[in-house]
């Protein structure tokens, strides 16, 4: 048989960078790339200088609105673009003791949104207990970031749609494309079919239906070295295709830019797309997105209770620049009086219409 002139489609990895002992599992190595090369050479401006031009350096928080808690890096999937480097081999899981500390904060916070993420948060053995307790705090918007396939991964998860409904959880799920090929390439074989089935099950209990209070939003990350297109246009395309092909309904689509860290950075470097991608991010820099970047209204808590400006900084181990660095010492007023820690990955949140865990910001 004649060989194709095109490179073989790379299968999604089965292990995390950490388990593969990948070079970029090292945070220092990642920071060297982000601070060196085209930035150190002066080819591209440092993020700090760019935001200083519009008087936003140092970047400061506004009112805290979102408390985002990462309950562990274990996941049933090993997505190529994952900034958490999550996977089945990751053992960092939030303990019940740390969850108790989080609950204390959740009961007293001024934030209106609680956002649970991972990994696959459902894989934390204390996940259900934590959701039940957290729901009692009566926080206005309670988000769980579910990867969808977890709902179909094992019998013990089959009732998750009902469980989410019972606690009025707002489900936010990743779906990189409405076609099978692109989804499976980024997330692994079979992910598309399982995600479709999970969405249908969420719809069946009322999630995502027009007019329903059971919120179901989808997250779109580009499956490659390019930026997301217009969020509203993508939402239109996703809605049309998922409805026509599978009868699936959902509320909103959040288009999220992949930040150049962890596995996505590894991919960019290995595929020789890193420089072009950074150029694209810097060229798409939108000053009006800076004032609303998510670190200005969010605190991110790691599985072991440390506090960060965002989930990306958490993965780069860039803790908050505050006297209060751990959930055990949590004090919202002290925390809110801090300078946000930034680096060149932050260009990912200010590109185009801006990007956050809640979609565009500009």
């Amino acid at each position, binding site marked *: 048989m004649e060989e194709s002139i095109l490179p073989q489609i790379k299968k999604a990895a089965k292990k995390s960078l950490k388990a593969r002992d990948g070079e970029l599992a090292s945070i220092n190595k990642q920071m060297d790339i982000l601070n060196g090369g085209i930035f150190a050479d002066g080819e591209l401006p440092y993020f700090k200088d760019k935001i200083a031009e519009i008087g936003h350096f140092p970047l400061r928080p506004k009112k805290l609105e979102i408390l985002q808690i990462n309950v562990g890096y274990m996941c049933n999937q090993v997505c190529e673009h994952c900034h958490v480097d999550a996977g089945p081999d990751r053992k960092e899981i939030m303990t019940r003791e740390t969850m108790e500390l989080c609950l204390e904060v959740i009961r007293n916070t001024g934030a209106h949104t609680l956002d649970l993420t991972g990994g696959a948060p459902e894989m934390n053995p204390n996940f259900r207990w934590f959701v039940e307790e957290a729901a009692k705090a009566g926080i206005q918007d309670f988000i769980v970031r579910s990867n969808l396939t977890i709902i179909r991964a094992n019998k013990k998860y089959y009732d998750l749609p009902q469980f989410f409904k019972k606690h009025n959880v707002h489900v936010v799920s990743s779906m990189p*494309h*409405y*076609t099978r*090929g*692109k989804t499976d390439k980024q997330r692994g074989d079979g992910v598309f079919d399982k995600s479709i089935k999970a969405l249908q099950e969420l719809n069946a209990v009322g999630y995502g239906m027009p007019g329903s209070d059971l919120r179901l939003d989808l997250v779109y990350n*580009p499956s*490659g070295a*390019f*930026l*997301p*297109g*217009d969020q509203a*246009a*993508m939402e239109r*395309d*996703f809605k049309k295709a998922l409805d026509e092909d599978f009868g699936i309904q959902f509320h909103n689509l959040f288009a999220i830019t992949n930040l150049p860290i962890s596995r996505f950075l590894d991919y960019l470097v290995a595929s020789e797309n890193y420089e*072009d991608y950074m*150029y694209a991010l810097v*060229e798409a820099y939108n000053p009006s997105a800076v004032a609303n970047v998510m670190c200005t209204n969010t605190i991110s808590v790691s599985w072991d209770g440390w506090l960060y400006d965002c989930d990306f900084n958490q993965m780069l181990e860039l803790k908050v620049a505050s006297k209060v660095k751990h959930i055990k010492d949590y004090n919202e007023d002290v925390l809110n009086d801090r300078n946000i820690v930034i680096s060149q990955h932050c260009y990912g949140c200010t590109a185009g219409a801006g990007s956050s865990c809640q979609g565009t910001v500009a």
Partner: protein
Amino acid sequence: MANSYYDPADLRKFGKITEWSEDIGNKFFEYYGKVFEEGALSAREKSLIALAVAHVVKCPYCIDAYTKDGLQRGITKEEMMEAVHAGAAIESGATLVHGVQMMNKYNKLSM
């Protein structure tokens, strides 16, 4: 000077053409930007037209730019390839339709 006529990094410098002729350069980019806005045709449809034309005029910069643009808009590879075929069909049709001229001339010259 580079040793080849095309350098992918030159695409990033496209905007610099205004430096040597600011007024008409800016007018071109203003026109270009306007053309690709949503209109009677969607920006997505125009992106596919641009991709087809990029192939017909054999512009490697434009092919890179509109493949990426298509990916950003969620355009699938099947849609992109069909657009390229549409361009190629017109281009080959443009050659072949001249066959009628050849036939006319042949018939005219023949007894």
